[in-house]
């Protein structure tokens, strides 16, 4: 079963535990600036929204890479940057429609979410369930269950 990161922005409080967990897992340091997942805080509505790579099936970044530095992790389906191959040309950052692959000046390479090899640190750290790692085929299961509950479990109107 392939799993994907699933985001429920309504549950996000803006605590940035996900950003710290991501940076710690990849760099061994608590640095939100190095995180591959970012939380956006929209002050005028009060909404906080985490955003990261959704691991496109036909990934623009992968197809755009001239040196084939981005490959598919067969176990997780993640599109993974091979740092030794990456030449830092940044073409992938232009190709990605979502902005979720970015250049890192300190290393001269690009970075993106690689699902931590199948155990994403961000989902593990999220205290509210705003970020979960679930069955790729059934990301709508939670919402379906809510509506099914409404359909079948409410007291019948008189």
């Amino acid at each position, binding site marked *: 079963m392939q799993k994907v990161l699933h985001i429920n922005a309504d549950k996000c409080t803006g605590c940035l535990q996900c950003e710290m967990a991501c940076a710690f897992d990849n760099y061994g340091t608590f640095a939100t600036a190095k995180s591959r997942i970012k939380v956006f805080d929209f002050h005028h509505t009060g909404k906080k929204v985490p955003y990261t790579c959704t691991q496109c099936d036909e990934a623009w970044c992968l197809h755009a890479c001239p040196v084939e530095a981005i490959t598919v992790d067969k176990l997780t389906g993640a599109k993974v940057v091979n740092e030794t191959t990456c030449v830092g040309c940044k073409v992938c950052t232009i190709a990605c429609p979502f902005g979720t692959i970015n250049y890192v000046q300190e290393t001269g390479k690009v970075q993106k979410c690689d699902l931590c090899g199948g155990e994403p640190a961000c989902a593990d*750290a999220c205290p509210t369930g705003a970020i979960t790692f679930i069955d790729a085929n059934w990301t709508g299961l939670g919402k379906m269950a809510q509506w099914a509950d409404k359909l079948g479990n409410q007291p019948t109107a008189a």
Partner: protein
Amino acid sequence: MSWAGKILRVNLTAGTVKSEPLNMEWAQAYIGSRGLGTKYLVEEVDATVDPLSADNKIIWATGPLTGTMASTGGRYTVITKGPLTGAIACSNSGGYWGAEFKMAGWDMVIFEGKSAKPVFLYVNDDLAELRDASHLWGKSVWETEEIIKKGLQDPLTRVSSIGKAGENGVLFAAVVNDLHRAAGRSGVGAVMGSKNLKAIAVRGTKGVGNIRDPKAFMAATKAAKKVLAENGVTGTGLPAMGTQVLMSVINEIGALPTRNHQEVQFEGAKDIGAEAMATPRKTDGKKQLVTNQACFGCTIACGRISKMDEGHFTIENKPQYRGANGGLEYEAAWALGAANGVNDLEALQYVNMLCNEEGIDPITFGATIGAVMELYGMGILTKEQLGIEAPFGSARAVAFLAEETVNGRGFGKEIAMGSKRLTAKYGHPELSMSSKGQEFPAYDSRAIQGIGLAYATSNRGGCHLRGYTIASEVLGIPVKTDPLESKGKPELVKAFQDATAAFDSAGLCIFTTFAWGLQDLSPQMQGACGEQYTIEELAKIGERIWNMEREFNNRAGFTKADDSLPPRLTSVEGACKTGPAKGKFNELATMLPLYYEARGWDPEGRPTAATRERLSL
């Protein structure tokens, strides 16, 4: 480890910014944030200094757990000699600024002297320089943050700044970061303004990486987060209702100071608490509460994001207040509401926004208005002086006087002094509901004995955050004690004060202590910093910090006589008129000598030689 090991020293007179190594001996002994920043201040500043003079210093300090994955590990403290009280001032704030500053590779920044013209400090990792702030002077906190980010073309910059109140020397001006998180009390913002320092803008990309034992630390933080999640207060109550959950609880036990502490129960409490915020308004069918919000690293998320009724009289033709914004916490809702007999929730939210926008402490402001309204009722202050009729219960008066205060206009200039100076000026000092010149927060010390002792002995003046015995006396955390009983409270107050100093100094939020004790802090400190941070050592460090602050105040001229409460709270005449505490007054006179004894102080409230030696002071 987990200290960055470096501090910034900024001489505003000379315009210089220098890096120096952190004094690690002090760091080990005083941890960080509140404790360590205060250690630097008391070593470098004469306690008798005029708080608003160039000789005072002001320090922004993070703790060793600031900027880590410890829950609530995002806090910083602003430390200086306070202009409202003349005592040590030490106000901490959440939001994101503290973690950003730590991630830039600094533990603290010390400002000394006074700049000839407005400046702001810009920090981007190793780069730290003073920049011209003439274009920011006269701007609000909200405008300042926006202008700085646009000027730098960097939306990820975090800003800690003052609004007009700090510039104008309002004695209870706050330092505000991330739009609505504040180092709110004791007038730290006025000291910042007196130095012509408008803001500190920070971008930190280095991170906090020198955790002593990362594996142990991560295990300890995970276990501690589980404790928070499974606790009724931190796991359920605070995220859903915020601190406003307290309004009805405190009113029911007859401990909600009302109309400048003339009463202890407010008939309008139900209109201004958590339930009211979550109930659709009659006017537009919408709830004031939009959502909750966390500060950096916080797994509790008690913060409120609210949205006002667009048709409310306070925001007619003022579109800037119509979006979602920082909402009412319990202390602000009480101070702006019950303390003045006002039950208009929308008006309270408007004034709350003004407090954040221009940077003032809503507790001292609201409590001062309470005194103004009482003086108005006595005929001592008039409509002509105030610019408005100001009887208790007038939402229009609170809103108007807030605008006058933050903008430095009319009678607002007198409110800017705080209640102690204002009531003295008009011949009724007994009407100031304060200790050491700082106004009490939202718990009545006639109905809750221990908190009265905590107010009277708080090193920064009247305050609930230096020893929150409400946890024990009302909520039963960690054990229930009788709020009406003064026996045993001196020891309880001491234990709360010492533990709080340790939590504050680690860089964590005191709200964790609804669920955590030092037994939860210790493994996190050990994982991050060193094996020596046992429960006993943390309690001892907390006690050391408390005594250090006390000795600064003693040197500044405070005596036993300043460990006091106003006669209204300690006399038969002022006793509670209603509720479960009817007939009670605070038994401070009984508790104080026992407290001094428990602290190892002489009968005049001075740490004895033996106490100083035991605490390595």
